[in-house]
């Protein structure tokens, strides 16, 4: 299970993950907006820069359309998203690694942050408890996309 959270004031659904790409892991957490209206997951150019990705070196990812019009994207290939939940009862970090064929990167003018789209969210049952402000994603085991779950000791 991956834990998400409700962002005030209007209860945006969000989740944090590390990025695995080119056999390297970002040491920064990415704050994703859960967007069930988006076909694809997209990394904001600000997050890409924060991770140290040279956007200009990436392949073109094609044009995507939204409420505000169309934008050109770049693409990171063969990446993994690592959702980490601390399990304080076991003093472990529970890690969920979800593999993605493509992760789009938004253009310079993009201001909406990084987005977790349906290419990833559709692999999960989303459990939204608005009354108690709890949000979690439970993996659908029959979904054919590759994922791995592992735990590591919590180092404080």
């Amino acid at each position: 299970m991956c834990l998400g959270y409700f962002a005030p004031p209007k209860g945006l659904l969000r989740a944090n993950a590390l990025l695995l790409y080119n056999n390297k892991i970002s040491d920064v957490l990415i704050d994703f907006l859960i967007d069930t209206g988006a076909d694809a997951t997209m990394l904001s150019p600000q997050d890409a820069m924060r991770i140290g990705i040279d956007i200009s070196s990436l392949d073109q990812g094609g044009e995507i359309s939204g409420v505000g019009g169309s934008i050109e994207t770049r693409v990171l290939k063969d990446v993994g998203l690592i959702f980490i939940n601390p399990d304080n009862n076991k003093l472990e970090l529970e890690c969920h690694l979800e593999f993605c064929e493509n992760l789009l990167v938004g253009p310079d003018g993009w201001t909406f942050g990084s987005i977790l789209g349906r290419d990833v969210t559709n692999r999960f049952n989303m459990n939204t408890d608005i009354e108690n402000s709890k949000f979690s994603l439970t993996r659908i085991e029959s979904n054919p996309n590759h994922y791995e779950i592992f735990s590591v000791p919590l180092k404080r």
Partner: protein
Amino acid sequence: MAARAREYIESSPHLYDNMKSFGANKYYYYQNRENLQKNYGGKFVIISNEDVIASASNFEEFSRELSKLDDKQRTIAFITHVPRMNELIMV
């Protein structure tokens, strides 16, 4: 790749502390969102050590400000574009 991920996380003693610091910076943003909207609406902000340490009006400025941070600050910083007051957002 999973083995590599596990090895990295196991060998990163500061990862959990960094996650907590990132969470604190994120919490600072949401707790102070209205004030930040008044002062930084329409801008990007970089929050570190539970304070706004830089703001930028466009991507070029943001890029310059981000490059001034050391690795630790960059790792734990929460960055976001601050909506203007009463701005409705539809992604």
